[in-house]
């Protein structure tokens, strides 16, 4: 799959942009603050309807403009035309000229994996970051997972609101508990299934890119050990004192260990960075295996920070993308773009919200 055309209107620092991209390897070169990352952000937005910078849509509207437009043509098995418009008052998403009514029918049109400096939060950040990693992977691969997740979040918020009321209506609470258990159990099941699938991929990727001989181990530590209904009932005393739901998939953890020691606590900075990249490579390889073609790789500033050994660990993945006529977009400032990548490169100069070949 590849993005054959990208069209931006009033997106970040791009007033208007129309550009064609061939399959293959694209280097986005330019000084700081010229709009390199913004391109990756727009591509990722089309794939996931979110910014990988974790900001809302309002921030992506070009300063002074009313709304942004992001559109593109995706060429894979067939062709798909994506159009997104977002303003405070109006938003629209269409696929091949038809308004998208169900996200499940849209997600998957464009698949991407992003590598960026924020990935370090996968190791350093709270469990929320790691749960989001799992959730994104599951939303990309399991139809209906996103719906489950949103229903769970809504039920959880409702239930917590009930727990905060002065007088607790036990029957009403039970109504929401049942819902939480039904949806939460399914989320736990899907997370439990996917972790062993990506864990060996991450271990191999880590071995390829790291300089040390340590073993990366990923383990799923669900909050619910066996039976959500039973464990929820057992937590009532703690719920009552903390006035919130204390067991459930919102408390799951994904444990990352190097030689049986927590990567967050004992890993060096370089090791943490390698673990983050290994997780993302595992994600890309998992998606490739599942769909038979590689996702678009969006690599932001990451390569420059890596030494030659780590970079060369990347090569098999890049070659895989190349073979399946996929695409890689990589941002670099001039000085540090990795010259050893001998693949045919398309070089783009990014300057003040414009792209030049």
């Amino acid at each position: 799959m590849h993005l054959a055309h990208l069209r931006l209107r009033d997106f970040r620092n791009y007033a208007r942009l129309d550009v064609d991209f061939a399959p293959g390897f694209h280097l986005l070169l330019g000084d700081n603050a010229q709009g390199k990352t913004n391109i990756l952000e727009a591509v990722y937005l089309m794939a996931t309807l979110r910014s990988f910078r974790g900001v809302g849509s309002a921030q992506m509207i070009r300063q002074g403009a009313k709304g942004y437009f992001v559109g593109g043509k995706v060429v894979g098995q067939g062709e798909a035309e994506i159009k997104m418009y977002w303003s405070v008052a109006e938003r629209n998403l269409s696929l091949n000229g038809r308004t998208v009514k169900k996200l499940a029918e849209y997600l998957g049109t464009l698949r991407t994996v992003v590598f960026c400096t924020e990935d370090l939060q996968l190791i350093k950040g709270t469990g929320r970051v790691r749960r989001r990693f799992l959730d994104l992977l599951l939303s990309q691969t399991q139809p209906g997972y996103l719906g489950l997740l949103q229903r769970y979040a809504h039920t959880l918020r409702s239930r917590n609101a009930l727990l905060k009321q002065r007088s607790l209506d036990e029957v009403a609470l039970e109504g929401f508990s049942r819902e939480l258990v039904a949806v939460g159990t399914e989320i736990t099941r899907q997370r439990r299934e996917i972790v062993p699938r990506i864990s060996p991929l991450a271990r191999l990727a880590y071995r390829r890119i790291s300089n040390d001989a340590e073993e990366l181990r990923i383990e799923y530590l669900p909050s619910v050990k066996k039976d959500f209904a039973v464990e929820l009932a057992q937590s009532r005393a703690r719920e009552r004192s903390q006035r919130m739901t204390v067991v459930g998939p919102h408390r799951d953890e994904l444990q990352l260990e190097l030689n049986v020691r927590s990567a967050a606590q004992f890993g060096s900075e370089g090791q943490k960075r390698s673990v983050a990249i290994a997780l993302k490579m595992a994600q890309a390889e998992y998606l490739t295996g599942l769909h038979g073609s590689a996702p678009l790789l969006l690599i932001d500033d990451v390569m420059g920070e890596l030494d030659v050994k780590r970079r060369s660990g990347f090569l098999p993945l890049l070659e895989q993308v190349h073979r399946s006529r996929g695409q890689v977009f990589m941002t670099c400032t001039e000085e540090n773009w990795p010259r050893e990548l001998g693949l045919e490169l398309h070089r783009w100069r990014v300057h003040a919200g414009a792209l030049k070949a």
Partner: protein
Amino acid sequence: MPLPSSIAALTAALSKLPGIGPRSAERIALHLVQSESGAVSQLADAIVAARVKVHLCTTCGALTEISPCEICASPRRDASLVCVVERPVDILSVDKGGTFHGKFHVLGGKISPLDGVEPEDLRIAELEARLQAEPIQELIIALGTDVEGDATSYYLAKRLARAGLKITRIAHGLPAGTGLEFADELTLSRALEGRRELS
């Protein structure tokens, strides 16, 4: 030149109506002030008359001009069967199906902790009174399949359970969500389930 203040006031009032944004509100206001005044008076009278005449049926909570409403008063309706819905308008959509010949009860909402709607805010006590007074043998709960609809259905089944009363549930309607909010699942692919007994 800014618009006269009476037009601005009308626009503001109109834009409070459901489904009418500021732009349409202004268009309607401009249309009204340039319309023939008889037509505008008729519209104003119709609005006031409807508001004065229509109220909730004291029995079932439907919108009606007479109380009890036509359905509650009808001898041709099966009085042993009552369908519980969220809003008055839901009566229309259930009734349109043509297969239901019982009576109705409008709850006036769903238990929704996030909106501060508690069981006491709903017409549940009225329903309990009807269970005492009427020969009701079966309640069919027809609430949406969103989280609140499910939780409220369960709540009703628990609170209203009594000997000789069957309580069943049919899925009715889809979770609201017409405006597309990115990264929000719009409709949960829950097939319309058959009527099943709640335990």
